[in-house]
C-alpha cells in the first residue's frame, strides 16, 4: 500500500511541469520556407533548450540523427527539446515530414 502511494505520488510529481534548468534557450521557428534561423550557434557542453515553434499550417517533426532527437510539433505549438554535453561540431537537423527543410546546430 505504501509502495502504491509512493508510486502514485511519484507519477503525480513527474506529471507536474517542473522548472527545468537550461544554460540557454534558443528559438527555432519552422516556416514553409524552412528553419529560421537555419544555423543555430551554441557553446560546447552547454545544456540547451531548443524551442521549436511550428509556424506552418500542418504538423512537422523536428528530427536529428546527429542529436538523437525527434519530436512532432503540431501547427501553432512550441515544443522544447533539450540537448546537453555536446562536443564541438556541426549537428544536422531536419523536418522529417518535409525533408527539404534542413538546419544545423553549430557547437563551438
Amino acid at each position, binding site marked *: 500500500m505504501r509502495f502504491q502511494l509512493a508510486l502514485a505520488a511519484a507519477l503525480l510529481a*513527474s506529471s507536474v511541469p517542473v522548472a*527545468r534548468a537550461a544554460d540557454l534557450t534558443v528559438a527555432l521557428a519552422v516556416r514553409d520556407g524552412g528553419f529560421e534561423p537555419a544555423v543555430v550557434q551554441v557553446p560546447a557542453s552547454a*545544456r540547451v533548450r531548443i524551442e521549436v515553434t511550428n509556424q506552418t*499550417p*500542418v*504538423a512537422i517533426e523536428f528530427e536529428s540523427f546527429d542529436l*538523437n*532527437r525527434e519530436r512532432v510539433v503540431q501547427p*501553432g505549438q512550441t515544443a522544447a527539446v533539450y540537448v546537453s554535453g555536446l*562536443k564541438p561540431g556541426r549537428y544536422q537537423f531536419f523536418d522529417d515530414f518535409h525533408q527539404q527543410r534542413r538546419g544545423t546546430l553549430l557547437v563551438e
Partner: protein
Amino acid sequence: MIETLLITWRESLEAALIVGILLTYLGRSGERRGVPYVWGGAGAAVLAALVCAAASNGLVAALDPDVQELAQAGILFLAVAVLTWMVVWMHRNARALRGELHARADRALAAGRLLGLATIAFAAVFREGVETVLFLWGVVLQGAHDGVLALLGAGLAGTALAVATAWVFFRGFRFLKLQTFFRVTGVLLLLVAGGLLTAAVNKLIALDYLPALVSQVWNTSWLVPDDGIVGGVLRAFVGYRARPSLLEVLVFFAYVPTMFWLLHRAGRSVGPAGRDPTLKARAA
C-alpha cells in the same frame, strides 16, 4: 514521392514487425484464439491515431506539448511491462507445449493474456500510427501542387511495404523447428522491449526529466547510418541509434541481459518436463 514512401515505411516497420511476431507466434503454437485480439488491438490503434490526429487542433492541442510527449513515453513503458509479462508467459507456455497436450496451452491463453496481446498490438501501432497519420494528413493539406493522390498513394504504399517486409521476414520462420522458433521469438520480443524502453528513456531525456549522463557514448553512423535500410530494421527491433546516450545504453544493457538470465534460470529449474525425450520428435 520515394521520400514519402520511405518515411511511412520507416514509421510503420516497427509496428508491422511486432504484430508479425505475435501473429506468427500464435499460428505456430496453435493458439488461434489470440489472433482476433492482435488484429483488434492494431485496428483500435489505427482508429485512435486517426482520432488523435483529427483532434490535434482542438482537444489535443489544448494539452501542453510536453504532456503529449509524456503520454507517449507512458504508452511505451506500458508496452514494455506487458511485453515482459507476455515473454515470461510464452516461455512457460513453450514448456507446456512440449510433451503435453496443446489443449492445455489453449486454456492457458486466459482473458488477461488475450488483453495483453491486444495491448501490445495497440501500443506498437498507436506509437508510430499517430506520426504516420499526422504526416499523411500534412501531405493531403499541403500537397495541392504535387498531386495529393500520388503522394498519399506513395505514403500508403510505404506502409504496405513495411507489412510486406515483416511478412517476408516471418515466412523464413516457418522453417525453424518449433523449439528453436519459440526461443527466437522470445529473444526477439525481449530485444523489441529493450528498444521500446530506450525509446521511452530517450523521450524523457529530450524533455530534461532524465540526465543523458554522456550525451553521445559512441557514433556508429559510418557503419550503420540511422536512415539506411539496415539502420531502420535494427531501429525497429532493438531501438538502434547510431549515437546513443550513456543512459540509453545502460538501460538497454540492464534490461535485456537481466531478462535473458531470469528466463534461462527459470528454464533450468523445470525438472524432467523440460528435457522431455519426445520433444525432438514433436518439434520436427
